[in-house]
């Protein structure tokens, strides 16, 4: 019993917090007689659910779901093999399709044949060699690096928090703000009609 409780307190306190917050909101909505307090209770109730979703996405030692570029000083430094190939392709984009073939060939791990393919590409684009030579060189370098570091530089999903609940809650926040707005507008109309926001007094006035 005590173990289970301490387990919840130690590892699932975020869920506990959201349950407590949700109950506070629900209690305010049901028990308070002032309409403004009820509306605030509603806002707390909705925020609790948003916190629940955010808790779902949290992981230990995880960071924001944004990919960072960290090469060896090379601005096209690759994180993965595929990524490296892509940036290689980007570097030579201005030349010809043949470079793409080379890059694709490298993605299958055939470094040598890729080199041949790139040579062939050089031949084909002979007239543009001066202009693109540097770009191809950079591409080959990036591909080589990617092949070397690809295995341990791959994106690991466990390193990042799950972005989807955050996106969902962005929508839910918009919805709850809209609901709050409509509720406050209705409260204003009620106040104009009865000159009070106390539900008991309003019901008294209706009965008369």
């Amino acid at each position, binding site marked *: 019993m005590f173990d289970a409780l301490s387990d919840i307190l130690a590892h699932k306190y975020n869920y506990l917090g959201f349950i407590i917050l949700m109950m506070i909101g*629900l209690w305010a*909505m049901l028990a308070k007689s002032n*309409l403004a307090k*009820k509306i605030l209770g*509603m806002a707390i*109730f*909705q925020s609790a*659910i948003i916190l*629940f*979703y955010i808790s*779902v996405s949290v992981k230990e030692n995880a960071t924001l779901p944004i990919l960072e570029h960290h090469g060896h000083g090379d601005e096209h430094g690759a994180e993965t093999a595929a990524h490296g190939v892509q940036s290689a392709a980007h570097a030579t984009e201005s030349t010809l399709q043949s470079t793409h073939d080379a890059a694709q060939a490298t993605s299958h791990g055939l470094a040598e044949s890729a080199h041949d393919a790139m040579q062939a590409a050089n031949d084909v684009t002979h007239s543009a060699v001066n202009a693109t030579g540097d770009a191809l060189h950079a591409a080959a370098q990036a591909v080589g690096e990617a092949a070397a570091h690809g295995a341990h530089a791959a994106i690991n999903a466990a390193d990042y928090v799950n972005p*989807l*609940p955050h996106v*969902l809650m962005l*929508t*839910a926040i918009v*919805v709850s703000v*809209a*609901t709050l707005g*409509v*509720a406050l*507008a*209705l*409260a204003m*109309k*009620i106040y104009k*009609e009865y000159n009070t926001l106390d539900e008991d007094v*309003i019901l008294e006035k*209706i009965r008369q």
Partner: protein
Amino acid sequence: MSSLTQQLPALVVGLPFFSAMAVTLLTWRNRDAAFPVALIGLALCAAASLALSIHIATDGPVIYRMGGWEPPMGISFYVDGLNVLVLAIISFVALVNLSGTRPAVRLEYAGKDGSFYTLYLLCVTGHLGMVITSDVFNLYVLIEIAALSGYALLGWGSSRAPLSTLNYLFIGVIGASFYLLGVGFLYIQTGSLNMLDIAGIIQILGVTPTLTAAFGLIMSGILIKMAFFPAHGWLPNAYCHAGSPAVSLIAPMTTKVMVYVMVRMMLTVFSPKLVFDRGLLPDLMVLMASAAIVICGLMALSAKNLKRMLTYVLITEVGYMVGGAWLGNRAGMTGTVLHVVNDAAMTLTMFMAVGCLSYKFGKLDYKKLQGVFPKMPFTMSAFVLGAIAMIGVPPTCGFFSKWYLILGGLEAGHIEFVVALILSSLINVVLFFKVFEIGFFEPWPEGTDSHGHPHRPAIAMREAPASMVAPLVVSALALVGLGLMNSKLVAIIENALPASLY
């Protein structure tokens, strides 16, 4: 042409949405543009939904990929026999009701036509989206779109409307939040938000405690939103005090669409095997539905205001549909989906008739409806036709869905549900014949001409404007039409029911 057919699911939801935008923009320049633009938008939407139902009836279900993205990642619409009829009836209900609103809107929402029609179209968009979407989170957003525009429309009535709407808003938020919480649990367990995808994952997983929690939360949220019996308290006040053009839109749509959402959750997301193997729960739900039917029928008997009486009848009908769905057999489920369609048409007829009456009389204490039949013959004929459908007399549509519900009740051995259905028909007979008796046999009271003019011979008609009565007559005749078409509708529904449901 075929490319247009492929885009039909998007058009059904997109047309009312973009006409809402158009109405807002146009009414800056010209207030009179609001009504025709809304009418054209909804007419096109109704045509699209009709074309879609013909397409589904011949070619089977359709998955529409938004922007061409594949379902588990992208957002998709799913249309099959279960929802295509609901889509069609809702777009037609909105269109028929809209075509009859103009005089009442001029009277009750003077000078704010543009805002009214924008909210109207957004409300229709929300409901259509709820029916067509196959993404559980989008369903939540669309529930809120429909509800928010609904709150604005309902809060815009008599002096008591804002208070009753605020209470509706509180209950609506609790219901929708429970649903959202359930979606969270579903997402934790399956990692997906697409209905068909979740269904596939659940097939492999089997029952887990998280899924049970998700199911419980989603169901309780939906039941609160549809005003199922113990949670129905908000509905009579909210509908009673609102303006009649708004109520005759929202009353036929909201509860029915939530019943459809429940059926979709039970059949597609959680499989029938998972839903109906839950010990006492299905039996308990049928018992609650039977209690809802009887108790709300009695409440309807005690109501003095015609509108309030109809809102209690509406809650009774929710009991029919929930009970039928939880019987757990094909006949019951067919009856439920058919009743969603039929009840939308019946409720539309009844509330439009009440709208015509209240256009002429203001408050509607039905004891004061003496001699109304010869004065408003068309309105009252439509009202009688609607009442006959609600009672369940054969040529009208109400009979056929009730027939399937009773069949399902007998098959499942739930005698209490069958008894409640028959009892409710009897209560409806008593209820509506009280109105007929006062309206038909008692004489028009002397000297009640509102302008103080001397009383004229009793035969002179004082009908509501023709633009209000004509759509009412159309919807009343549609009740017979739907009844005659019942075998076709049932065929479409039965094709879509999963094979695991006997």
